[in-house]
């Protein structure tokens, strides 16, 4: 599959043509909304919490200069180095530089979508470093040489049997049973335990940055993030500024939404706050810690009409509820972020030229906005991107022109009614026996997959004007 948003339709076709993978996606599409709904119903306060967190986050974004200043001040006074990167290349350079200054050879990495964005692992490996993804899902796709298919469960497109094959070929551990998923997890645990213990540098992301005290928050079920944050002598936190929240309780309030939305659990197993390097009373932990704050268009988005997209907490609920994502799978999007949130972010982070198909992969059904814990009006943002696409003349000419003609006709009722009064009865006569057309000129997109139902004898406006005329005649005769 091509990692290229312009190949979305071809990729989608390929994905639709794989019945086994399609079936697994359908199963996930039935399962994930069910557990999310159960969790929210059990919690009982989704809407008030969503409103509260939304208020706090919009307040933070409105005053981001104040909070960024505060976070930096606190993070520095906690003993961190704080770096800023305009783009992915700069972030990668900064991280590599830190690793090289320490003569690091082995890197243990926690899950971080920001580092996916910048292609950090590839960059470090290109410089000869050995990078191990420690989140099990990321480890699996790393071993398989594939991109993640989902922002929360990167390897959910793989069956247990495929993971078994992968482990058998990649881990040199001799004859062994790997039929149960539990055995696969146990093997990964053993292999990766060594990596944690040997790592020279730990790299993690952050689910939130707390301005009032300079702590970063990381949540996992596996505990791999904590192992990366506590064992290696150097820790690098790669993140972006929209993660900043004012207070610690704002971060944990947000978690009430994040975890239920992502997995249907009330909370994650590990919710950890790290302030910086080892202190006097510590016997473990990194001796040197770094924050690398990446911009990569965030400040542009902040200044734009798409600003609300910065409220995204990467829960993946919109993916889980999107029937288009289910149909095509994550890889079809050809981008780091997929599904509804990816279809908004990708044009903003890359360009509309490269990715304008993605906002079109949407029926406007609104299921995403219904479940979005951040209250982001995704269907409206997607429509606005289609507006930008249309204004930039990136959509196919025949569509743009066809829709303009239709709109013009609609504003000229007499012509519209006149033309349809001619066309519809003709279509009716042609189609009335069978009831539908299997082929119709100008409707190839429709008829490639569907029959086109035949119209009735006349248009309504035609039939109604006849009724009105007949009624007037009757009244005159009475």
């Amino acid at each position: 599959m091509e990692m290229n948003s312009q190949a979305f339709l071809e990729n989608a076709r390929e994905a639709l043509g794989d019945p086994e993978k399609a079936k697994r996606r359908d199963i996930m599409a039935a399962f994930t909304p069910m557990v999310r709904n159960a969790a929210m119903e059990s919690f009982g306060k989704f809407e008030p919490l969503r409103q509260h967190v939304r208020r706090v986050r919009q307040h933070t974004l409105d005053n981001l200069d104040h909070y960024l200043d505060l976070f930096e001040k606190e993070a520095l006074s906690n003993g961190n180095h704080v770096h800023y990167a305009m783009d992915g290349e700069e972030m990668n350079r900064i991280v590599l530089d830190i690793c090289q200054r320490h003569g690091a050879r082995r890197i243990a990495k926690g899950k971080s979508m920001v580092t996916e964005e910048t292609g950090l692992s590839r960059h470090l490996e290109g410089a000869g470093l050995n990078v191990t993804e420690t989140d099990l899902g990321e480890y699996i796709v790393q071993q398989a040489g594939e991109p993640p298919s989902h922002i929360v469960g990167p390897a959910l497109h793989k069956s247990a049997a495929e993971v078994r094959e992968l482990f058998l070929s990649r881990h040199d551990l001799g004859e062994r049973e790997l039929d149960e998923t539990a055995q696969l997890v146990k093997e990964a645990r053993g292999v990766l335990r060594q990596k944690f213990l040997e790592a020279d540098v730990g790299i993690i992301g952050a689910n939130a940055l707390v301005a009032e005290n300079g702590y970063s928050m990381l949540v996992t079920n596996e505990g791999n993030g904590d192992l990366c944050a506590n064992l290696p002598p150097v820790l690098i936190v790669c993140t972006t500024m929209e993660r900043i929240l004012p207070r610690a309780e704002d971060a944990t309030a947000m978690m009430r939404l994040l975890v239920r939305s992502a997995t249907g659990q009330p909370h994650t197993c590990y919710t950890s706050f790290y302030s910086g390097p080892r202190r006097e009373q510590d016997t473990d932990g990194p001796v040197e810690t770094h924050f690398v704050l990446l911009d990569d268009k965030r400040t542009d988005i902040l200044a734009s009409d798409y600003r609300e997209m910065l409220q995204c907490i990467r829960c993946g609920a919109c993916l889980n509820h999107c029937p288009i994502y289910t149909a095509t799978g994550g890889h079809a999007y050809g981008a780091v972020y997929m599904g509804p949130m990816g279809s908004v972010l990708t044009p903003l982070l890359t360009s509309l030229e490269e990715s304008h198909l993605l906002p079109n992969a949407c029926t406007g059904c609104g299921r995403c906005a219904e479940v979005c814990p951040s209250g982001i009006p995704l269907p409206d943002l997607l429509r606005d991107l289609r507006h930008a696409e249309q204004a930039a003349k990136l959509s196919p000419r025949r569509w743009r022109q066809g829709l303009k003609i239709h709109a013009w006709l609609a504003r000229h009722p007499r012509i519209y009614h006149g033309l349809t009064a001619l066309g519809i009865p003709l279509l009716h006569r042609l189609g009335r026996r069978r009831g539908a057309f299997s082929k119709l000129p100008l409707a190839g997109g429709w008829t490639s997959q569907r029959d086109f139902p035949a119209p009735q004898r006349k248009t309504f406006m035609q039939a109604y004007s006849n009724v009105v005329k007949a009624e007037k005649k009757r009244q005159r005769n009475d």
Partner: protein
Amino acid sequence: MNEERSNPEGHTRQPQVALFVTCLADLFRPSVAFDSIKLLERAGCSVVVPTQQTCCGQPAYNSGDYDATVPLAKQVIEMLEPADYVVVPSGSCAGMICHHYPRLLDGQWQRRAQDLATRTYELTTFLTDIAPLPPRKVKTAALPPVTYHDSCAGLRELAIREQPRRLLRDMCGVEVNEMQQTDVCCGFGGTFCAKMPEISAKMASDKVNNAVATGARILAGGDLGCLLNLAGRARRMGETIEVRHVAELLSGDLAGPAIGEGK
């Protein structure tokens, strides 16, 4: 024929309803519009059909052509606003008028759009909440099992779910056989189904299969876009489930062919 005339909201005169038939009903299934008039009159309303109507502007709007949509929206508002109520046999077109016109327009036009929105209703909502249909059974043979498709716009923009089911119960004595995953899109999405036909077809197939699995013989719904999509896909799949607009069931208009059905 002595119709029972109910008096919605204690009006001393009959409430005047302007029917916005929708372009799909106008072009592909006028019987739905005629059935809607019949139902509204039965509910005690006097119905006018503004003759300058064509389309609410969704095709251009959803494809992002806001510039082409604005003048059309203004035309529609101007045409409809004199009525006491506007009734629309489509969740998506009613949603367009109620939710999206105010978003699209500014200043005095926005105010006029907001005002119109307070008086604009989708058909089944109007016939349950505003001008309740006097309960009576449809005088035809008992209906075969029915399942119901909730359009996304109707469901999420206008909270339409119970209303058609209540009407089917009260007017036709029918309890809907619910499908699996009623809240998942059927794949129509306006221009989407033509821009991304294979993805759309998969979604439509899932919906048709869910409908057939209920054992229902009729698939009803309130939005012709969805219904044309599902009927077309069902025919291509070789499924014979009858696809009809809910107005047809409620008014007992079942003699003619279902959507996509031949003579």
